[in-house]
């Protein structure tokens, strides 16, 4: 098995404050990694480093054999292979659902309009939104917007998908529909996924590995079931106690 993503001794600082301390992490092709941890522990920063939305302060990142910072000019190539889904959806407000999804294939992958639209229709169908292709994001519910956003990320056929708390901005009754879409992707496509979430059920069901971060470090990792059942550190015990009560 080959590593899809590798972080070697990665540090990240914003100004004077270091928020990631010497992170070492290797993620295999097809692996689903769930990242949990308290607010401010560096989860977002970690996954944003993987698609170069944040540049490493030191250390090395290797994504699909492309090395950063050595091959800095290939950042765009990394992004083509690494899609991202955001907490706030971030759909383009001036494009319909279909246009949002077709945008990547037609602009980033330079496909012709018709083919890009075909791909987009197919994906909207997969996320259960075939009837909404002409709607603007403002006309969709949060759950629907997030499903469009997932389809948009999938449309450029990346090898990796990053999710940064994809259900945190959603009303409770919409969380399920988004998690279901994510489960289907994990099950059917064999996509490498890194998911920051506090949905422990999701972690247990589809996660191959659970990572607990605190204070910019990876504190514990392992099979989700085992980590959840037998947390070693006090901090994780504490944290799991809090999540369960919400």
């Amino acid at each position, binding site marked *: 098995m080959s590593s899809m993503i590798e972080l070697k001794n990665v540090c990240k600082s914003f100004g004077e404050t270091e928020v990631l301390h010497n992170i070492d992490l290797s993620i295999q092709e097809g692996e689903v990694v769930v990242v949990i941890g308290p607010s401010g522990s560096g989860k977002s920063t970690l996954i944003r480093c993987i*698609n170069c*939305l944040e540049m490493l302060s030191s250390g090395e990142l290797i994504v699909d054999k492309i090395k950063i910072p050595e091959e*800095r000019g290939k950042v*765009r*190539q990394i*992004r*083509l292979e*690494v*899609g*991202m889904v*955001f907490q*706030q959806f*971030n*759909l*383009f*407000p*001036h494009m319909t659902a279909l246009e949002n999804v077709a*945008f*990547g294939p037609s*602009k*980033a992958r330079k496909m012709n309009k018709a083919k890009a639209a075909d791909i987009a229709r197919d994906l909207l169908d997969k996320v259960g939104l075939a009837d909404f292709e002409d709607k*603007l*994001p*403002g006309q969709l519910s949060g759950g629907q917007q997030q499903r469009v*956003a997932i389809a*948009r*990320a999938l449309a*450029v056929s990346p090898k990796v998908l990053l999710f940064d708390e994809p259900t945190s901005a959603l009303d409770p009754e919409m969380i399920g529909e988004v998690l279901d879409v994510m489960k289907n992707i994990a099950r059917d496509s064999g996509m490498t996924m890194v998911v920051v979430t506090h949905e422990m059920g999701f972690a247990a069901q589809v996660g191959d590995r659970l990572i607990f971060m605190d204070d910019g470090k990876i504190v514990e990792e392992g099979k989700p079931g085992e980590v959840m059942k037998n947390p070693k550190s006090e901090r994780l015990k504490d944290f799991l106690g809090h999540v369960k009560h919400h």
Partner: protein
Amino acid sequence: MGFEFSVITESLPALLAGAKLTWIITILGIVGGMICGILAGLGRIAGTASLGEEPHGIFKPLSVMTRYISGGYVETIRGTPIIVQAMFLYFAFPMLVKAVTDIERFRIEALTAAVITIIFNAGAYIAEIVRGSVVSVNKGLLEAGMSLGITRFQLIVHVIGPIAFRRMIPPLGNQFIISLKDTSLFIVIGVGELTRQGQEIMASNFRALEIWLTVAVMYLIMTTVLAMSLRKIERKMKIF
């Protein structure tokens, strides 16, 4: 000496010719000013996170330079009266050319000077409008675009541009109207635009009421046409 309607009909051809010139200067000025303003507005935020990610290598000092040049241009124009700009371009600039080169008979036509003045003047204010709306585009949308693997150029044209443009329309309408009215100041360099035509007719027949009323109505019609066209564009764009 009451209100004489015949004064208006008699002076109408000359006033209409003036209005036509006013309109031409305005349209050329607005089109040129948009190009100028978009370049300078983007120039002022070159290399910042508002246009995607920060550059590296040679592009870093280049973007700093671009910011300084654009900023200098905008502040110079905003800090001086348009009438001084027109005077400078029409009277002083040819002398400057004469002083530093050996071109003897360098002249700028009054009309050309008027158009160039409006272009650079409107451009500076439009630059600020462009900068303000681009900076206000939600950074999350830029990140969503970048994470799809599109180029910076595509990001600006397809994501930042359309979203920012929609926010620009109301302040642009304002600026277009100001520019149209500013053309009346070119009376000082002898351009035969509407205000000057009115002034000349007035000087020969002393019918201030009829002439200035007609002139005012003509300006009002032109500014209304500008405002309505912008509102039409605004309505055509998708609501979001």
